[in-house]
């Protein structure tokens, strides 16, 4: 038994990354970013509004939070739908009570199915991101570029038309991409994407259609990941976010450069009656100091870009 000689070739072994998508750099070596009023921490809350179709294809994998049982999986379909009917309004109330700005990433199919919800999101003034077509339309390496281009174009155009918003941000379903996704996003006027979770701060990402900003939306600090994937308790969720907040403030103050706390929340998860108080606890802790800048993704990127230009 032996392996093909090609297994011992390393064509991308050399300085920097093994691809050309972005430059290698350590966070500690970057130009410091200073948030408005010298606040050490920027808080970015994103609310993910999702549509999980009952006739899930699961190609090339089931979306996280998707259907589980044989068709028709009424339990998961309706549990997810609960978020868009009930949970989201609890989340809105929690944000309002604590004066927290949030962006909303919405599946375009959901926006078209639920114009009321879209109007509420827009009317409340949330920055709107496109969250792809629906949760079962996953961008992946096995796709034809033309097919993916059509999906991205449709998702963005129809969300922009329906909302009247100039949508500049993108969050892929399951944060999954093909090799062509960043280029297609840039081609269709997207300025920042949130799928690459390899950093705690924004960074410049290269595509054949020009530069796009990678704005990492942490998975590790996501409600769904902590509570559903890891099976941790609601209290543990809150403890972990609070620890992250305190850690980032301390790091920012120690090194004199701003840090970012990026929290993705799902109304079908934290919007349950027994969980919402943990979001309130988290937001109350974060907003209890004057060290936190409550910002939208575009505001965060604008300050970051300004710092790069200096």
């Amino acid at each position: 038994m032996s392996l093909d000689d090609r297994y011992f070739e390393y064509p991308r072994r050399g300085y920097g990354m093994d691809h050309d998508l972005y430059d290698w750099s350590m966070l500690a070596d970057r130009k410091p970013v200073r948030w408005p009023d010298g606040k050490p921490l920027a808080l970015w809350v994103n609310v993910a509004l999702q549509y999980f179709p009952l006739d899930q294809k699961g190609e090339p994998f089931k979306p996280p939070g998707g259907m589980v049982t044989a068709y028709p999986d009424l339990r998961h379909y309706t549990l997810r739908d609960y978020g868009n009917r009930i949970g989201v309004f609890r989340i809105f109330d929690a944000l309002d009570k604590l004066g927290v700005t949030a962006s909303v990433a919405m599946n375009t199919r959901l926006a078209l199915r639920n114009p009321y919800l879209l109007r509420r999101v827009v009317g409340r003034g949330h920055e709107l991101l496109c969250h792809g077509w629906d949760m079962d339309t996953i961008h992946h390496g096995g796709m034809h570029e033309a097919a993916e281009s059509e999906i991205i174009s449709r998702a963005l155009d129809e969300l922009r038309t329906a909302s009247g918003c100039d949508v500049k941000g993108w969050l892929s379903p399951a944060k999954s991409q093909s090799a062509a996704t960043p280029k297609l996003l840039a081609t269709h006027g997207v300025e920042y994407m949130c799928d690459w979770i390899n950093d705690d701060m924004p960074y410049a990402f290269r595509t054949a259609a020009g530069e796009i900003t990678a704005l990492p939306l942490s998975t590790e600090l996501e409600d769904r990941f902590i509570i559903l994937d890891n099976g941790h308790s609601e209290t543990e969720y809150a403890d972990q976010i609070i620890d992250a907040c305190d850690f980032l403030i301390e790091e920012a103050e120690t090194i004199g450069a701003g840090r970012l706390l990026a929290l993705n929340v799902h109304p079908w998860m934290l919007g349950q009656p027994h969980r919402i108080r943990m979001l309130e606890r988290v937001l109350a802790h974060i907003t209890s100091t004057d060290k936190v800048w409550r910002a939208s993704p575009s505001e965060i990127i604008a300050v970051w870009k300004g710092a790069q230009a200096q």
Partner: protein
Amino acid sequence: MMRSDPGLYDYWPYENRPKISWPGNARVAFWVAPNIEFYELDPAVNPHRKPWPKPIPDVHGYATRDYGNRVGHMRLMQVLDKYNVRGSISLSTALCDHHPEIIEMCRERDWEFFSHGIYNTRYSYGMDEAQERSVIEAAMETILKHTGKPCAGYLAPALTHTERTMDLFAEAGGIYTCDLFHDDQPTPVSVRSGKKFISVPYSLEMNDTIVYVVNKIEPRRYSEMIKANFDRLYAEGANNPVVMCVPLHAYQVSHPHRLKAFEEALEYITGHSDVWVTTGREIAEHWIDQHYDEAVADIEQRVLSLGGAS
């Protein structure tokens, strides 16, 4: 034909072993092993194991690991510095080319570098003897070239082995392996050359990736587990000294919701007297020099008198 027993060591019961004497009469030799790894975005594929669970590019999986290099190592390094712990690095040796800045920071601190293969996306499965020897030697040469010190230890890339792995690493000049989890003390490992080659206890149970990702343990509970592990080993070490290892991955432990809790455990352990805070190589060299012959004699005598597997 597969073997029913790896044939690497004899049964050697914990009770009534010859006593180990660590420097300073320490009860516990404590070492911390940060894995500094490079995962390739699109590597050559080993027919026995896919490099990524999702279609390439597996953006989420790749970015998860890249976080360690961009953000994590610096944070972890600062914590280890604070408690005067020198890391024993389990190194994907191609990282010397990709990210020499990280290597330089470890060199400045006189940390130990041992081999974890060339990339953590290249697996030993299916290699013939010449192929495996060649990659083992190449990785060791890279360590010597970039750090000026010969490589003493081995943790196979992605913990992938063949039946010959230990033989080949010992013949290439290695003296210890981290791949065996059968003991809390060093033990001799049988290799075909008859060289003095040993196992230094690494740990899966204390390994952050196994803890957080496989066992889905909360950050604060991990800290409690480490302290409990230490407390018992420290008590037993008064009778016969032992080894405790905490293997780490900066892409896991250095997240803002985790590092402070881990630091508490490190502060606790290093706050004890009679703890030898050391490296894998120092443990291996000391034990081979002081205890190897005695251990081999004891094992031979016990195998003869007790019977059983050999």
